[in-house]
């Protein structure tokens, strides 16, 4: 049996194994190792122990230790809900924008088409004129009178024609003017609607993207 090694010597031998001694300490220890067989034997034993420990097998990973959002304490459901909500709002606003744009372009034409778009603007002109005709039927009657006079018709015939002409001209215009449809309202507020919906789509889209990244 080897004699028990003093604690201080044990520390020196252990540190020497790992190259942790200062050059002076290492030199002194090497000199002692040459002189003291018991110390050399203790050093070799310690060396073998360390070799043995270094050969200890590493265990295979039994499973993955990656964290789920629940483990991390993240509110997965509410986060996903907010993301879905913003995403849906963005999609809805984009769809509404497309509908407004299609309606606007169908009736008013593309802004860049210039003269070619003029015929398509007729319904708008008619809508704009309708209230004027309704508010001053006397002017319309007067215009019909002068046209009849130009054609050389007598008073009774012209009276009959005037009544028929006025009634026939006013009927559709009054209908359009008194019951404005959703299309008319959209067309009247097209620019405002387009700006609002585009902004809503972009903002909701950005919020959805931000929520997704969190």
């Amino acid at each position, binding site marked *: *049996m*080897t004699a028990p*090694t003093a*604690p201080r010597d*044990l*520390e020196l*031998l*252990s*540190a020497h194994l*790992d190259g*942790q001694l200062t050059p002076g300490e290492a030199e002194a220890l090497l000199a002692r190792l040459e002189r003291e*067989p*018991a110390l*050399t*034997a*203790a050093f*070799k*034993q*310690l060396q*073998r*122990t*360390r070799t*043995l*420990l*270094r*050969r*200890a*097998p*590493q*265990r*295979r*990973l*039994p*499973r*993955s*230790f*990656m*964290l789920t*959002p629940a*483990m*991390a*304490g*993240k509110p997965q459901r509410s986060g996903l809900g907010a993301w879905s909500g913003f995403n849906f709002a963005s999609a809805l606003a984009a769809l509404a924008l497309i509908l407004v744009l299609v309606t606007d372009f169908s009736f008013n034409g593309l802004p860049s088409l210039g003269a070619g778009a003029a015929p398509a603007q007729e319904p708008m002109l008619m809508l704009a004129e309708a209230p004027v005709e309704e508010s001053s039927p006397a002017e319309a009657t007067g215009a019909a009178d002068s046209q009849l006079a130009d054609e050389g018709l007598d008073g009774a015939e012209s009276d009959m024609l005037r009544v028929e002409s006025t009634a026939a001209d006013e009927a559709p215009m009054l209908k359009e003017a008194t019951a404005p449809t959703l299309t008319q309202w959209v067309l009247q507020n097209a620019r405002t609607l387009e700006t609002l919906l585009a902004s809503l789509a972009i903002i909701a889209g950005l919020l959805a993207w931000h929520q997704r990244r*969190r």
Partner: protein
Amino acid sequence: MSEAINEAALIQAAQAGDLDAFNRLVISYQTVAYNVAYRLVGDDATAQDATQDAFISAYRSLGSFKGGSFKAWLLRIVTNACYDELRRQKRRPQLPLEPVTPDGEDAPDQDWMADPGESPEDLAERAELNTAIQRCLNQLDDEFRTAVVLIDVQGMEYGEVAEILKRPLGTVKSRLARARSRMQDCLRGFAELLPEQFRLTGEETP
């Protein structure tokens, strides 16, 4: 270098709440974390619990990481989780530290990384060695065991271990020396069980 930059970027992203970035760090360190835990607690199920708890705790306290060695910071959390598990076991000693079959025999434990081309004899020898080392480790005090596991079994540097244990370098050196000496004495008791090349005898030819 790029690996260090990548790790720093992942840590920064994880600190900002990016769980995917943190999980990439988990992938990098889970093997060493689990192996350290296993050697400290000596039991697979407890080691798994301690490792998982440590990663959860690490994610939640990422704000306290102010730079330096992420590995050392993480392994400190792992060792603390293991100490907690060991304290719990001491209060309620229900599970044996050694894997035992219903017959009272040591269960064959070969759940470690096999070397490619290793023969059945080599595997058996490694099984014996593993059992002997684990039994001896289990007899050490917590901090002695941690020092020897981190430096000798995991091959870490003294400085990193000092950071993990939050002890001065001199304390780490002395604890390691005493731990090695106790391991040496313990492993001598397994001389008959170990293959010849692994045997430690009382006598050593100078």
